[in-house]
C-alpha cells in the first residue's frame, strides 16, 4: 500500500498542526507540508506534488475556492482537493466542488472521519459522504439556474450505457454498487467511469455528479 501524501492549507496554525498530528498518526497517510494561505497552497502543490490537499475555504488573500481552481485546473493534474469548512454546507462548499474539489469535510470531524475522507478522496472510486454530497449538489445546482447549453451538448457524446452510469454516479453509488445494479463486473464499471470522465473532460466522480445535476441529466428528487 502506497502512502497518501497530504498537504494542509489553513491560515490558522493550530488547525494545521492539529490535522498534521492526527493524520500522521494514521497508517498510510503522511503530511508532507503545510500552507498558510491560498497562494502558498498553490506554490506548495507545485513543489511537493501531494496526493491530497486539505483546503480551508476561508483564507485571507487567495481563498480556498480560487486556490482549488488553480490547483485542479491544469490538464493532467492528479492532486485531489478536500475542502474544510467551519460552518456548514452552503453554496461556498458547492462553489468549491464546482471549482474542482473532490469532497468536503467539517473541521470538527473526528480523526477517524478525517482519515477516511482522505483515503476515499485519494482512491477516487466513491463519492465522499454520498448522501450529503448528493443533497448539496442537488440543492445548489438547482439554484444556479437553467442547464448550460454547451454542457448539455457534451452529454450527447456519451453512449446510452455511459449516460446510465453517469446518473448512477450522481446518485452517490460506488463502482461496486453500480456493478451490482447493472449486473456487470466492477472492472467494466471502472472502464465506463474513466471513459465518461475522459469524454466530458472531468477530473473525478464528484465533478461528474456536479455535471450530471447541472445539465439536468439527473433531477433532484423530492425538491
Amino acid at each position, binding site marked *: 500500500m502506497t502512502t497518501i501524501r497530504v498537504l494542509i492549507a489553513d*491560515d*490558522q496554525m*493550530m*488547525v494545521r*498542526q*492539529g*490535522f498534521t*498530528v*492526527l493524520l500522521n*498518526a494514521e497508517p498510510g497517510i503522511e503530511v508532507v507540508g503545510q500552507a498558510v494561505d491560498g497562494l502558498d497552497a498553490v506554490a506548495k502543490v507545485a513543489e511537493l506534488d501531494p496526493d491530497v490537499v486539505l483546503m480551508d*475555504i*476561508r*483564507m*485571507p488573500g487567495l*481563498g480556498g475556492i480560487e486556490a482549488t481552481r488553480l490547483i485542479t485546473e491544469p490538464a493532467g493534474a492528479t492532486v485531489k482537493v478536500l475542502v474544510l469548512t*467551519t*460552518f*456548514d454546507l*452552503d453554496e*461556498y462548499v458547492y462553489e468549491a466542488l464546482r471549482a474542482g474539489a473532490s469532497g468536503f469535510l*467539517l*473541521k*470538527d470531524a*473526528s*480523526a477517524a472521519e478525517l482519515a477516511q475522507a482522505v483515503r476515499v478522496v485519494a482512491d477516487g472510486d466513491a463519492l465522499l459522504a454520498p448522501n450529503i454530497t448528493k443533497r448539496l449538489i442537488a440543492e445548489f445546482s438547482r439554484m444556479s439556474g437553467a442547464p448550460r447549453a454547451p454542457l448539455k451538448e457534451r452529454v450527447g457524446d456519451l453512449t446510452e450505457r455511459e449516460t446510465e452510469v453517469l446518473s448512477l454516479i450522481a446518485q452517490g453509488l460506488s463502482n461496486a454498487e453500480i456493478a451490482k445494479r447493472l449486473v456487470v463486473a466492477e472492472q467494466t464499471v471502472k472502464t465506463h467511469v474513466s471513459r465518461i470522465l475522459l469524454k466530458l473532460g472531468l477530473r473525478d466522480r464528484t465533478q461528474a455528479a456536479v455535471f450530471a445535476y447541472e445539465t439536468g441529466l439527473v433531477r433532484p428528487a423530492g425538491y
Partner: protein
Amino acid sequence: MTKWPKGIRAAARALREDLWTAAPDPLSHPRRPGWLEWRPALAVPLVLAAGMLMILNTNDYAFDYQLGTDFGLLLAGVQSVALVVAMYRPIPAWWATTLVTFVAARSLTDSRFPTPFPWTAGGLGVQAGVLFLVALRVRLRASVTVLVISSLSGLVCLMHAPQTSYYQNADVAIPVFVAATAIGAALRGRAVARTRLVEQEELTAEERARRTLLEERNRIARELHDVVAHHMSVISIQAQVAPHLVENPSEELKENLAGIRENAVEALTELRQVLGVLRSEDPLSGTVRHAPQPTLDRLDDLFGNVRGAGLTVTRRTSGEPLPLSPGVELSAFRIVQEALSNAIRHAPGAEVRVEIGYRPAGVTVRITNTAPDRPAPASPGAGHGLLGMRERTAMLGGELATGPTPDGGWEVTALLPAQPPAAPTDPAEDTP
C-alpha cells in the same frame, strides 16, 4: 314589539352621548402645531365679534323685542359668552345659545315694528358661529343632530308665533346654519384625515427605524457567532490532538479530552443552528457569509475601494499594536468600513485619514474626511452605517463620537476597550 323601544333607547343613548357626555376631539395632532396652538390668537377676533354681536343683540332683545334692558343684556351676554366658550366647550355653548334663542322667542309678546323672528339678527350670527365650531369639533352625527335641533326649535317658535308684527327669517337662517355646519364638518374631516396620515407616517418611520436596528443587530450577532464557531472548531481539533502529544496518556486524560471535544462539537451544532436562523433572516447574508471575518490587518483591501471611488486615503498607526480579541478587531474593521463607505457616499473627492491608535486600554479608531470637492449625489438608504457603529461600540463598552469638523468635513471616533466590560470580579475573592 320589543325592538322598537330598544331602538328608541339606543337612539336616546346615542343622543345623550353626542349632546351631553362626549368630549370634543382635540383637533390638532398633539405633536404637530395646529389649530389648538392658534386658539389664543383666534380668540381675539372672536371676542371682538362676540362684543359687537352683544351690542346688536342687546338692542334687539331690549328694544325690538321689548324685553327690558336687564333681561336683554342677560340674554345677549349669555349668547356672546357662549360664542367664545364654544371654542373650548362647543356642546354646552350650543345648548346655551339654543336655549337663549328659544326663551327670547317665547318671551316676545309685542314689538314696536316688524322684527326678525325667531332669530334676531345677532342671534342668528351667534347660532351660526356656534354651529360652525360644533361641527369643527365633534363627529358628524352629533353636529347634524345639533343642527336639526336648532332648526326645529326655531320652527317650533314660529308655530307658536306671538300676535305681533314680525317677519320670519327661518328661510334665511336654516340655510345659513346648514352651510356653517357643512363648512365646519368639511374642515374637521380634512384635519382628521391629516392627523391620521401623520400618525401613520410616524408609525411607519418608527417601524422602519426598529427594523433597521434589528437588522443591524442581527448582522452583528451573526458575525460574532461566526467568530465563536471558529474558535469552537479549533477547540474540537485541539482536544483531539492533545492525546497524541503525550506518551501513554492516562485514561482520565483521554476521557477528559474526549469530553472537551464532545462539548465543543455539541456547541458547534447549536451554533450552526443559530447561524442558520440568523442568516435566513438576513438579506445581505448571501454576499458576506463566506469571507473570513476581517481584522484591522485587512484595512488595505478597503482602501483600494476608496481610492477607486476617487478619494485619497492616508493611514496612520500609533502605539504598539497589541493583540485584540476577534470581536474588537472585527468591530474596529467594520467601523472603519462604514465610515469609509459614508465618506464615499457623502464626500466625493475628499481626503480621508484613518488613524488607528493602540493603547494599553484599547484601540482608538478615528476616521476624518475633508469637505467634498463637489456636491454629493443624494443617496437613498442611509442611516444603517451610524447605527451599526453605535451598536458595535456599545456592545464592547466603548465610546463613539461622530460629527462635522470645522472645515466642513466629517469625523468618526471610536474608542474600543481591549477588555470587554465583563461582570466585575470581586478582588476579595482572591485574597484569603
